[in-house]
């Protein structure tokens, strides 16, 4: 018998960024970087473990916009072009530096990584969803869904809009994974009382929330955050453990700050001569290429960073994995005594932390799960669904409204930089409900317009836009996306009402905002 359980939850999400109208688009790079640095390395690590007979359980959200991008032929083709460039540059670096020099060693490492990414990407038929789906079907992964476009559910005005975010996500999940989702990552872990009703209606069994969502529940949660509890209606809430969160996230003590790990901000895209790296940059704009030669080194200026040593970093990742496991063993044994029953530690993280920010993150996870499998028996990895199947009786309570954002509530998405969007989003929700109710049946161009209206509303609702406006970087792009989708929605609404659909324009918009081809606008009724 293990002392308790460890449930890792990785949230993989990117907003839908797809610009066929431009040859190269800076923000599309988020997706290509995430594939090379996070999604493919994680997939390869999972597959290695599965092949080696390691028993592991990981819960991973792959949000609908991310799945739609993964399955999109245009973006798939562009990712290959992106890899072509990176591989070419890596080859040139290999030619320029002897194999035994520090840069020579790293250049070969990058070249091999790019090749491995390409090989796996091509063997998956360029759609990596298949790889994750196979791991889910084999029982290693529990893939959960999210809001259709990562919309802030508690800040929506109508119940129809909240329901649509969940139902559209569910339908999309079925399209990509061939079954219904059993769990959901509420966008930004944003919960307010009442949302569980929509989850229940969609057949979803559990959701993830931040610690205070459960700790401040009414009545008090007997086991704190160390066992799930049922929200009204019987949907289980799993809340974040703060100790394990801190070990990874903390600025001061977190593992990713180790001096042996790779330095994020020294990148060939910025360091190289413009004439040399220019051809590999999107429209020649200086940006990260993902070829980085330095390690964090210490509290020093960027130009004082020492060369990265992949072997030393790998050893550190192994040591950190051992430390993390040791801490979980102690934590679970302590909690086991305190609670008198098996605790479960829920550890949710951004998937993109592993690989993109923390380059050695995927290695860390692989070491962790291998060690948990071979070296001990106190901690057993588990998915929320497995836990609920084994333990059916849980406390019923009313969780508290909360998010996992700064300060724990909604301020990140509702402040002076972005509060202007809600008037427009709410009006668009109201109008979409009106359209759906007044058009129970439709066909031809009218039906196409109604579907596109639903897509535009959903895209405008992405919480990413409000978030980016708060952080300030790339805020113009986020504002533009919000305004563009609201404006497109409004135009479609007015054209439908007037009975005059501009077919050429609509076809153009359909070609740009291609998300959710399967959408049924009647979900807004």
């Amino acid at each position, binding site marked *: 018998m293990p002392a308790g359980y460890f449930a890792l939850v990785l949230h993989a999400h990117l907003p839908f960024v797809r610009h066929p109208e431009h040859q190269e688009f800076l923000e599309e790079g988020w997706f290509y970087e995430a594939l090379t640095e996070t999604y493919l390395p994680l997939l390869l690590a999972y597959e290695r473990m599965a092949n080696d007979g390691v028993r592991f359980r990981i819960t991973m959200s792959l949000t609908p916009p991310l799945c739609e991008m993964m399955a999109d032929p245009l973006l798939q083709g562009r990712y290959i072009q992106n890899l072509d460039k990176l591989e070419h540059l890596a080859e040139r670096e290999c030619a320029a530096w002897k194999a035994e020099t520090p840069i020579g060693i790293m250049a070969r490492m990058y070249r091999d990584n790019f090749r491995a990414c390409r090989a796996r990407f091509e063997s998956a038929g360029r759609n990596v969803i298949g790889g994750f789906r196979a791991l889910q079907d084999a029982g290693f992964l529990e893939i959960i869904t999210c809001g259709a476009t990562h919309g802030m559910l508690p800040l929506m005005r109508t119940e129809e809009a909240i329901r649509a975010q969940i139902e559209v996500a569910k339908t999309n999940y079925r399209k990509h994974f061939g079954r219904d989702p059993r769990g959901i990552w509420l966008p930004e872990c944003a919960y307010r009382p009442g949302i569980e009703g929509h989850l229940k209606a969609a057949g979803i069994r559990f959701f993830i929330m931040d610690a205070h969502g459960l700790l401040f529940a009414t009545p008090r949660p007997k086991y704190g955050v160390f066992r799930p509890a049922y929200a009204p209606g019987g949907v289980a809430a799993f809340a974040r453990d703060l100790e394990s969160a801190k070990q990874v996230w903390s600025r001061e003590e977190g593992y990713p*700050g180790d001096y042996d790990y790779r330095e994020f901000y020294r990148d060939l895209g*910025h360091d190289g001569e413009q004439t040399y790296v220019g051809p590999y940059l999107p429209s020649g704009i200086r940006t990260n290429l993902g070829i980085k030669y330095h390690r964090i080194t210490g509290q020093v200026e960027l130009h004082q960073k020492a060369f990265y040593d992949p072997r030393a970093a790998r050893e550190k990742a192994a040591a950190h994995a051992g430390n993390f496991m040791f801490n979980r063993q102690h934590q679970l044994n302590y909690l086991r005594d305190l609670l008198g029953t098996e605790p479960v530690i829920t550890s949710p993280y951004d*998937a993109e932390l592993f690989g993109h920010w923390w380059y050695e993150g995927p290695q860390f996870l692989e070491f962790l799960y291998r060690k948990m499998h071979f070296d001990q028996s106190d901690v057993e990895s588990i998915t929320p669904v497995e836990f609920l199947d084994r333990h059916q009786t849980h406390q019923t309570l009313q969780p508290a409204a909360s998010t996992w954002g700064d300060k724990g509530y909604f301020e990140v998405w509702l402040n002076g930089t972005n509060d*202007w969007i809600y008037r427009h989003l709410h009006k668009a929700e109201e109008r979409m409900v009106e359209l759906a109710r007044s058009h129970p049946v439709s066909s031809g161009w009218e039906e196409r317009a109604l579907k596109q209206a639903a897509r535009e509303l959903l895209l405008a609702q992405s919480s990413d836009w409000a978030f980016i406006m708060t952080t300030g970087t790339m805020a113009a792009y986020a504002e533009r996306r919000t*305004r563009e989708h609201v404006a497109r929605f409004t135009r479609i609404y007015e054209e439908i009402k007037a009975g005059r659909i501009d077919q050429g324009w609509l076809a153009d918009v359909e070609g740009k905002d291609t998300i959710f081809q399967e959408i049924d606008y009647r979900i807004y009724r």
Partner: protein
Amino acid sequence: MARKPRGPEDYTREELLIMAERVNLKYRSRKSKEQLYEELGLGEKKAGARKSGRRKIAASMPARRAAAGGEDATEERAPLGMPGAPVPTATSSTSSIPLPSPFAAPAARTGPYVDRGPDLPANYGDDVLEALVRDPRALFVYWELAGGAYQRACAGKSDAELAGAVWVLRVSRIDGGQFFDIPVDPGVGNWYLHVDPASAYQIKIGLVLASGSFVELASSRVVSTPPDSVSERVDEQWMLVSEEFDRLVDYTVQQHGRQPGSAQMGQLRRRREALRRKVVEFPWNISSRISSPGVSSWMTSPRGGASRIAPAPSSRRR
């Protein structure tokens, strides 16, 4: 918040050409730097002549609204500017001032051209007030009074009745039955309210007449703020002795006070005191590292290792 306009000398011709391409300026490649600058409307002459009058007004307004005082501001007049409107506050005494749209994005349209997307309607012809919960102690409310409710309310009233009327947000507590009024300028269009945790509220906008009666123009639904502490309610079926629960909560949050150092010890003490009051002082700083998933990974200063050495943007480029 108008920035000092940049002159033609502040741009390269290439920069101007890129901007010209974005707005599809004809014959752009044949034009000189000065011509491009002029035709893109970047010059003080063009922008200044149209906007200088408004800028003075804008200076007295909150930053957000000032920034929003763009081209569309003149078209829509908030109720204050309407004939016969009461004059509630000193700032709005010049009733001919067109109030800017409260819903425009806070984007100053001066300086180099940045594509922030198309303009959105200044209003939708509705009378609405919507309240959103920001956190246990704050609500955000926005309103629009463009549906004629104001005119209808005024129609049956004499000038004498309306004279001295004051615009207010009426904040009612559903559970206790009390309310309080906050005088507002209706043209502002939104407001943040300080409220109590674990309470239900309804917000209305309207006029308090000299007689004391309240004329409601728009009302929110009932909204509830979340609790910011551990519940006093204990489930009998799942009862846990209070000390045990305190240990558990203590364990949950105490992990973050372990490091030595007086700051942390002080923090720990505060947490213990808070716990005694059953108010958990949360280590929000951990949440803040996480913020938002996905795109945030590209937006925020990175977590963990990278964040401690995040350099100034300029130093990143070699």
